[in-house]
């Protein structure tokens, strides 16, 4: 193998095209920049897609159609109905199934000559180096900051280009990181944002066709790297504004002080990215490191109604409706907490804790709507599974709310323990 100008190894021998492939790739074969040699190179190439979601879908479809011989797909998730608005690898009949399974099926249908290697698992500090080493180029279509830093570091440490894309509402970013002499993701974003600062797609929304644009561009940049043609978007972060239809280019150079690709790197193996990003889930009940207490879902009824038997008594419902504001009913004998739901309205509509007096303020609106959250009274925060609400609970504690608790396991845990208190579709 001879190195190319971007450091991507050239495909070895043994990738000759058969007659069916020659016909299939006819429009590539006539391009001087591809030709038979280039197409054979694509056939021998191995590309890893981290995430089979909004970005991974179009990227994988174009890479498969282009005849990239092996596509690794890492994704631990199953297909959810809210994915289908943009994740075009998956269809309605795939709901509830593993994304890597529907990805493999769809890609095989697009191009049966392509081998798809599914990884139905999360990319972690333990498996990333081993998996990345198997591939020539990595396409980062992940959906969270810990994975973004992990992909970056594993790529730099393994000498693999990282074709980065990300989306938020109507805006996207695109860049090639980790090629020789170029910057990496950490040169651009040295520190992760504070947890909870940047909402994810579920919280903020994303325009469905946007990841189509960015993901297709990731496929294009990947193929250019594999063919060693043109100029990759290395060192040139692209920021796309779909509403204005405008691409902006920002020149980013390698930072000699970068902890992973700099002159004196301090990160020489994958680290704990949940810790680095401040997103570490709290494993034990009670208090987390920031001092916000966890509330056991089994205690929720007792805490909200003063009924310590932990069982739901319909009389409590009446009492709660009367005692909407506990300060009006001091004889109740307990400080009834303010129950704060920080999910999105669509999640609230599906199921909620209105029967226990819950009030909805979606996570992204909490900082602007603190006036909706009373002080001088305990606050219990919940979301679907307890992750978003922990961020909000910590935020409220930092804002001076003194008795904040996070409902551990979220409304999903209440569904398990006390489904009778849930308002369904109310």
């Amino acid at each position, binding site marked *: 193998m001879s190195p190319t100008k971007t450091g991507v190894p050239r495909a070895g021998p043994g990738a000759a095209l058969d007659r069916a492939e020659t016909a299939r790739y006819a429009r590539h074969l006539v391009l001087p920049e591809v030709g038979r040699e280039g197409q054979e190179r694509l056939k021998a190439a191995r590309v890893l897609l981290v995430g089979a979601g909004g970005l991974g879908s179009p990227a994988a479809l174009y890479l498969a159609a282009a005849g990239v011989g092996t596509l690794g797909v890492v994704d631990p998730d199953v297909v959810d109905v809210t994915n289908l608005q943009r994740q075009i690898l998956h269809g309605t009949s795939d709901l509830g199934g593993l994304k890597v399974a529907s990805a493999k099926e769809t890609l095989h249908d697009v191009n049966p000559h392509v081998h798809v290697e599914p990884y139905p698992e999360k990319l972690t500090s333990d498996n990333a180096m081993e998996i990345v080493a198997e591939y020539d180029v990595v396409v980062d279509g992940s959906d969270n900051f810990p994975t973004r830093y992990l992909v970056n570091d594993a790529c730099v440490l393994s000498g693999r280009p990282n074709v980065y894309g990300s989306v938020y509402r109507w805006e996207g*970013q695109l860049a090639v990181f980790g090629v020789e002499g170029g910057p990496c993701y950490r040169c651009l974003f040295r*520190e992760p944002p504070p947890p909870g600062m940047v909402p994810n797609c579920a919280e903020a929304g994303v325009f469905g066709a946007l990841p189509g644009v960015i993901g297709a561009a990731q496929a294009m940049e990947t193929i250019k790297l594999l063919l060693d043609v043109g100029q990759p978007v290395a060192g040139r972060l692209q920021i796309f504004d779909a509403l204005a239809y405008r691409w902006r*280019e920002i020149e980013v150079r390698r930072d000699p002080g970068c902890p992973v690709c700099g002159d004196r790197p301090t990160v020489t193996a994958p680290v704990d990215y949940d810790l680095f990003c401040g997103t570490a889930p709290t494993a034990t009940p009670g208090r987390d490191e920031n001092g916000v207490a966890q509330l056991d879902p089994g205690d929720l009824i007792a805490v909200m109604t003063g009924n310590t038997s932990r069982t739901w008594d319909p009389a409590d419902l009446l009492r709660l409706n009367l005692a909407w504001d506990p300060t009006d009913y001091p004889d109740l004998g307990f400080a009834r907490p303010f129950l704060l739901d920080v999910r999105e309205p669509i999640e609230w509509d599906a199921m909620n804790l209105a029967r226990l007096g819950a009030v909805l303020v979606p996570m992204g609106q909490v900082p602007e709507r603190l006036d909706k959250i009373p002080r001088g009274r305990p606050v219990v925060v919940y979301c679907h599974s307890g992750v978003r609400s922990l961020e909000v609970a910590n935020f409220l504690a930092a804002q001076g709310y003194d008795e904040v608790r996070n409902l551990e396991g979220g409304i999903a845990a209440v569904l398990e323990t006390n489904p009778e208190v849930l308002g369904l579709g109310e």
Partner: protein
Amino acid sequence: MNVLFFASHRELAGAGDTVVALPERSTVNALLAALRERGGGLARLPEQVAVAVNRQYADGETVLADGDEVALIPPVAGG
């Protein structure tokens, strides 16, 4: 100088851009401090913000000149 906001920063600022007047030879860090002092959502601009001056990535000590275009680059993780 003209400051551009994207993605989550755009929502903090409530606008895609703004004009900031600063003393001569002010740095990027001084600009960020001035933005935070405006209060509202901008008060919550994180400690570390990636910045480009005239479409080139720049550090906090970079000295600004009148008429510079300063873009705040938000981290975005959605996929």
